[in-house]
């Protein structure tokens, strides 16, 4: 923790998006698991994720960002999956 003499005047933060240095993955009790073969790359999980923890490259979904995922399970609930098979399932963390 910086003292008042070390912070910028007015407590201005000069580095945009510095929250990326603060990892929130340790909050997680449930862990989302991505099942690639059931994924239709609709990217709904990406747009709905409150923690920007779904990585996407060139319009294709990639692995979760477990550094930040808080394990809310929103993506698993909204996942349409393929032929009734979800592409995201929640598992107990630490198993």
């Amino acid at each position, binding site marked *: 923790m910086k003292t008042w003499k070390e912070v910028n005047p007015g407590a201005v*933060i000069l580095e945009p998006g510095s*929250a*990326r240095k603060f990892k*929130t993955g340790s909050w997680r009790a449930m862990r989302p698991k991505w099942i690639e073969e059931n994924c239709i790359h609709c990217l709904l999980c990406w747009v709905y994720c*409150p923690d920007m923890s779904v990585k996407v490259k060139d319009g294709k979904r990639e692995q979760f960002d477990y550094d930040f995922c808080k394990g*809310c*399970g*929103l993506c698993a*609930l909204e996942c349409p999956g393929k032929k009734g098979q979800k592409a995201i399932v929640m598992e107990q963390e630490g198993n």
Partner: protein
Amino acid sequence: MATPLTLKELSRKEELFTPGHRLCAGCGAPTVVKMVLLATDYPVIASNSTGCLEVSSCISEYTAWKIPWIHSAFENAAATISGVETMYRSLKKQGKISDEIKFVSFAGDGGTYDIGFQSLSGAMERGHDMTYICYDNGAYMNTGIQRSSATPFGADTTTCPVGSHIPGKLQQRKDMTKIIAQHGVPYVAQCSPSHWGDLMKKVRKAHEIKGPKFLNIIAPCNRGWRTQSDDAIKMAKLAVETCYWPLFEIENGVTKITQRPREKKPLIDFLKPQGRFKHMFAPENEWMLKAAQEHVDAYWERLEKEEACFAPPAPAAAEAPKVAD
């Protein structure tokens, strides 16, 4: 050129709201902010009044924002951004700046409906070129779920607790969207993150209009609503489908419903999953369910009538054959 509104194309954009913010797991607010910033293709400057979003997205040396962002007190987010916008106009006039910049203010329902109302009303009246975005989670969630004037009828909060004296909040919520529309501003709209396309279209439309704009966006809060951590989007969708949160816009005084639910679901579908309405399902509180449903029905009916007033006239019917007299 504007990015096409498809998730594939939007996913190529730089994220302007980063993870590492300290909002609860499954919160609706970051999704709302993310969608607003994704839809914006201009450089944008934001002010943010005190609330969950503000205290959790900027703690000490960590900020989740990649845009110029100004923290405001509870009551003056609209006044702050008004000042910034005025300075921008002055600098533009002096030829010191040439970029087209958009100004946005984020606030919760407490900072919009209650504490920030006077500064918001003033900014709307003065006609600043700005977009005010309220993420409405229906109570002061940041300080531990106290009632606000956006809290729906019947909800259990810490300042209208269910007990032997009262069965939750006894007043109906304030209709902020229409109150701002009554300021005569060019554009107000109500949106939901569950309908991301509709939300982003409205944000884009707002940016293209000159003058003050107001967007009211529902942002489910699983702690305050007493729901599961994974159902923010599901609850937002139910709010739209039950017409508790109709999606409409008022452009220059003309009302338009932008998403009409295929089938209007009964309000209990929205109330039942929420722990804050649990007491309303007790046999002695049946009147509350009825009162809540009646309020939603009346609002929806009025909205449909308002829309019908401005609907383009139906094509003239073929002239009736003249009856010989």
